[in-house]
């Protein structure tokens, strides 16, 4: 086996190998080895400060592992140019952080980084997919929290990622927006069979969205299995 590649199971798209990160000599993530299967939704749950978001940030290399690594389709992600890696492993943040301009400007941001232009028709199709038909020319400063998070999701999808990471995408929303975005995520992921790793502190939400779940505590993987096994045990 070449050090830059790992065979793994045929249906594994993303895997971590003893992934660890230390900050100021303190282990934030400790030796996590997990495989994410193609088309599945894996929920990362755990108490506050357990390292859920830190783990997610290691998956698209927004942070650097202290030891261990991540394989994307069997290739060590250190062999992939970071920009290309992040296009293939998209991320929706806890807060939408929309860029100044219109909704369509935001959708075009990712493709534009690669010198591509998202057509009006493709942009409108994405907006329809997230339930915001006709919102293209709207200034993002006039959007509600729920609408902004939908644009954020559409913006990530515009990059056609192979894996989508979501960091508590509904935690900054009110209850009604939260349910709307959650059902949208279910619909979008279900229709496209997109592989997804979602961080949530809400175990009920994890049960509604995910196929499998992993529980983190103090940066360590405590349990991993189907949602029924893990969350209803």
């Amino acid at each position: 086996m070449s050090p830059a590649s790992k065979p793994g199971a045929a249906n594994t798209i993303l895997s971590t190998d003893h992934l660890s990160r230390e900050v100021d000599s303190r282990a934030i993530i400790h030796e996590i080895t997990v495989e994410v299967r193609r088309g599945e939704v894996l929920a990362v749950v755990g108490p506050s400060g357990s390292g859920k978001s830190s783990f997610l940030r290691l998956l698209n290399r927004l942070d650097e592992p202290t030891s261990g690594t991540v394989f994307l389709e069997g290739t060590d992600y250190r062999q992939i140019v970071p920009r290309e890696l992040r296009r293939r492993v998209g991320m929706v943040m806890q807060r939408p952080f929309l860029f100044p301009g219109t909704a369509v400007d935001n959708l075009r941001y990712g493709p534009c980084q690669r010198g591509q232009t998202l057509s009006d028709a493709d942009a409108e199709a994405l907006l329809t997919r997230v339930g915001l038909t006709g919102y293209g020319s709207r200034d993002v400063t006039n959007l509600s929290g729920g609408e902004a998070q939908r644009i954020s999701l559409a913006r990530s999808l515009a990059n056609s990622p192979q894996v989508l990471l979501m960091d508590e995408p509904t935690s900054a929303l009110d209850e009604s927006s939260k349910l709307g975005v959650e059902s949208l995520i279910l619909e979008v992921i279900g229709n496209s069979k997109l592989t997804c790793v979602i961080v949530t502190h809400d175990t009920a939400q994890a049960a509604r969205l995910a196929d499998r779940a992993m529980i983190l505590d103090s940066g360590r993987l405590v349990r991993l299995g189907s949602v029924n096994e893990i969350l209803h045990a």
Partner: protein
Amino acid sequence: MLKHLFSNQLQLGLAQAAAAALLACIVILIARRRQIHLESETVIALVRGLVQIMAVGSILVVLLRGPRWTGGLLLLAMIIAAGATSAKRARGIPGSFKVSTYSIACGAGTVIAVMTWLGVIDTPITALIPVGSMLIANAMNTNGLALNRFRSDVLAHRGEIETALALGADPRQSVYPYAQSSFEASLIPAIDSLRSLGIVWIPGLMAGMLLSGARPVYAAIYQFVVLAMIFAASGLTSLVSTLLIRTHAFTPAEQLALRPGIQK
């Protein structure tokens, strides 16, 4: 009043320095009441500034009589010292000393070289060093302002920057708006100096030229020349530093190097 108390010029100078420093300390005490703690930084800067200028003044007396090439060496030493001072405003950004020194050398160095070649700055050390040091000092201040603003903006917009990175953006592109605003903000003092020249303040150089017998119109024009050179040197320095710092704010794996825990 002090002139009546001290007949010796050195004693008078030290008393005047103490009076000015006392006022600075009063400001720091007022700031302290508003929970702004600048005590140690200011006291160290005041003492350091006084010791440095006295030491350099003594050395200058010797060097100003030396050969012309010593002028170049002095300016180079000033650029390195200026780089080290303003780099502290970008703490947490790797390579900030290199960026600062290179930027000040590009900005102030280019203006000094071109203007000396054109004959605007005279080549004798007695003319080159005072004007050159003015350009370097102002370039240093502008560089410090630019880096400080960039650092604050990047820390305040970490979410936006990492969102852009997560969408596959070029790191330099992700901090572009903050580099732009840092450049603009850093030039405010230089622009305001030019705007208010002769109205709000009449700089020392012109007063000195008048005292040494220069024609008032020429003294006024030369003062404008100096301020325009300061603007050019500061602008070029800030342009280079905000261009270079964009790359240094990231690790080779294109991760944001600046973390909120790293304090100024």
